[in-house]
């Protein structure tokens, strides 16, 4: 199966993804590159800097390891070369000594002079130390050890042949050893010794040459590696530096921008404050005048006023009052967005007890069944949260006024460690869910003014306060059945 598919496309894996095998082969390296770039772009600046420094660190480790290895080899080679030189020297000495042994032995046989015998015996005495030293110097090389064994044997054979000749000489005099004295007792062995020593010498010289070449190459490689490594490290460091600098520049820019925006915002806030001050002061004056002069007019024409005219005057006054109320509500709403927020622990149970006690005038003549669960403490601005619960409870009381028995339930839903959701449920007139998005808008009302009073700012205030606490608010309702209002507050401290 595989061989068949392989024959059709040289790259079966990418052929599955892409119709043209040749194209996929061409696009593969850039694809990997793009994936790498994409991965890199996903990293935070800290991770990039860390990655850069890690690479520099790993690079330094690799360079150090290789340099250490090369230097060790260099040192080992120079040690081995020393040994090789020693060996060559020793071999020369052995060769000279063995030649001398043969020479003085022959002279002794011919002349019978003791000084030659003494010289010969010195060489014989030296032989074990030669052997020991030899074994020491060829340690680690099988080939040379083999040769040393042969050499040793040859030396022994030469010496034993010579000692045999000495015995014959002492027993039978010069005649017995005549031919040996002319030819040499260990002539053949000495020749073999020369040959072996020449072989060993050649072997060591070749080894030295090899090591010198190897060391030179190692040194050159180390230098090249160090050069490239240092260059790479520099590039990497430059790259990390670029990122850090880029980040710092960016941060500075953002900080500057933030400051500029903060100043703009502050200016806008100041303007808004001046505006609402002006609204609060100047807009009320004409209203006061409308109501005031309507009152004065009523007073001065009191006796001749018919019902219709009296109603007109009343309407003028009522409208002025209503507008005054709207202005006040709008100012409260505007102040709610600007006011400094406190952050303390608030006990909603106490808050709700106080609110219900404050509402007792509205509750007169009403039959209300309260179901209030034990509520957990929350973090927030006590005055603002009081306003939230006040508005929601007052709404529940207001919109259940048409019920013979009002049911109002306050509780907590889905408690979790990070957030808490309060709800206030009533069996009042409710609302159609299609109008739910309008509920929390400023001056949005779902009921006619003659049904339920109010300016329509309460829920807008609720939403604004809850948002400033980092929470959410929403409502569910069924027309003529009741409504439930939810307030979700985060449990952890949040800055507005």
């Amino acid at each position: 199966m595989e061989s068949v598919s392989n024959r059709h496309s040289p790259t079966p894996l990418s052929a599955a993804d892409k119709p043209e095998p040749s194209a996929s082969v061409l696009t593969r390296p850039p694809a990997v590159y793009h994936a790498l770039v994409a991965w890199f772009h996903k990293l935070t600046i800290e991770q990039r800097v860390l990655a850069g420094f890690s690479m520099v660190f790993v690079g330094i480790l690799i360079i150090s390891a290789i340099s250490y290895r090369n230097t060790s080899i260099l040192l080992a080679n120079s040690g081995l070369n020393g040994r090789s030189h020693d060996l060559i020297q020793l071999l020369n000495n052995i060769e000279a000594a063995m030649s001398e042994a043969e020479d003085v032995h022959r002279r002794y046989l011919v002349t019978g002079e003791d000084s030659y015998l003494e010289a010969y015996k010195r060489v014989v005495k030296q032989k074990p130390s030669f052997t020991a030293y030899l074994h020491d110097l060829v340690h680690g090389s099988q080939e040379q050890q083999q040769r040393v064994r042969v050499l040793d044997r040859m030396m022994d054979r030469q010496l034993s042949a010579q000692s045999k000749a000495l015995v014959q000489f002492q027993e039978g005099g010069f005649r017995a050893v005549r031919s040996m004295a002319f030819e040499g007792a260990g002539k053949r062995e000495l020749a073999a010794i020369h040959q072996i020593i020449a072989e060993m010498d050649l072997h060591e010289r070749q080894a030295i040459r090899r090591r010198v070449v190897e060391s030179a190459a190692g040194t050159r490689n180390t230098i090249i590696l160090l050069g490239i490594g240092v260059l790479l490290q520099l590039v990497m460091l430059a790259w990390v530096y670029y990122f850090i600098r880029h980040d710092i520049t960016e941060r500075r820019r953002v900080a500057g921008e933030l400051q500029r925006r903060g100043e703009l915002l502050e200016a806008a806030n100041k303007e808004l404050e001046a505006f609402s001050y002006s609204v609060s002061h100047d807009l009320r004056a004409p209203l006061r005048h409308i109501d005031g002069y309507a009152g004065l007019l009523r007073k001065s024409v009191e006796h001749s006023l018919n019902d219709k005219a009296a109603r007109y005057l009343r309407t003028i006054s009522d409208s002025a009052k209503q507008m005054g109320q709207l202005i006040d509500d709008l100012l409260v709403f505007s102040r709610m967005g600007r006011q400094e927020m406190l952050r303390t622990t608030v006990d909603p149970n106490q808050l709700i007890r106080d609110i219900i006690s404050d509402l007792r005038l509205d509750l007169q003549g009403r039959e209300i069944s309260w179901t209030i669960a034990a509520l957990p403490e929350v973090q927030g601005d006590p005055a603002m949260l009081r306003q939230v619960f006040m508005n929601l409870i007052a709404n529940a009381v207001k919109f259940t006024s048409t019920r013979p028995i009002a049911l109002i339930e306050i509780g907590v839903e889905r408690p979790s460690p990070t957030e808490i959701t309060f709800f206030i449920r009533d069996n009042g007139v409710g609302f159609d869910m299609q109008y739910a998005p309008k509920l929390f808008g400023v001056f949005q009302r779902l009921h006619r003014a003659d049904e339920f009073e109010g300016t329509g700012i309460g829920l807008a205030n609720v939403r604004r306060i809850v948002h400033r606490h980092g929470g959410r608010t929403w409502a569910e309702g069924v027309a003529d059945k009741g409504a439930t209002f939810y307030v979700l507050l985060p449990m952890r401290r949040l800055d507005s």
Partner: protein
Amino acid sequence: MTATKPILLAEDNPRDAELALAAMEAEHISDKVVLCHDGAEVLDYLYCRGQFKSRLRGNPAVVFLDLKMPKVNGLEVLRTIKADVNLRPIPVVMLTSSREECDLADSYALGANAYVVKPVEFHKFLSAVKELGTFWGLINEPPPESCRSMH
């Protein structure tokens, strides 16, 4: 005698002034009211200069001060009054449309004796001005220093 001491009303808006006077008229104290149209006039009155050069010496029983006035505003007048050792004892009532917290705080910090927000509804405004006029102009005993002649 308090009955002879005038009530100083600083009000730049003639309609507000008329309404205030109408309210005090009902209590028969409107004839004691001296009306100033801006802060500078209030200071002229208190220091007996300008158009008030030849007025009868003596401090008023109370000063009703609007905050927002041309030339010299209410807070500046208040600061001047409370910084002058002779004027300091005069009770000063801020009578203003502003419900802003900063105005309240500033007024009390400068030594205002009372702070009243003018109600929008006429009958509330009426009763507020009546009560203020009656209390400060008739019931309250002004400090003896206010009887001392100026200069």
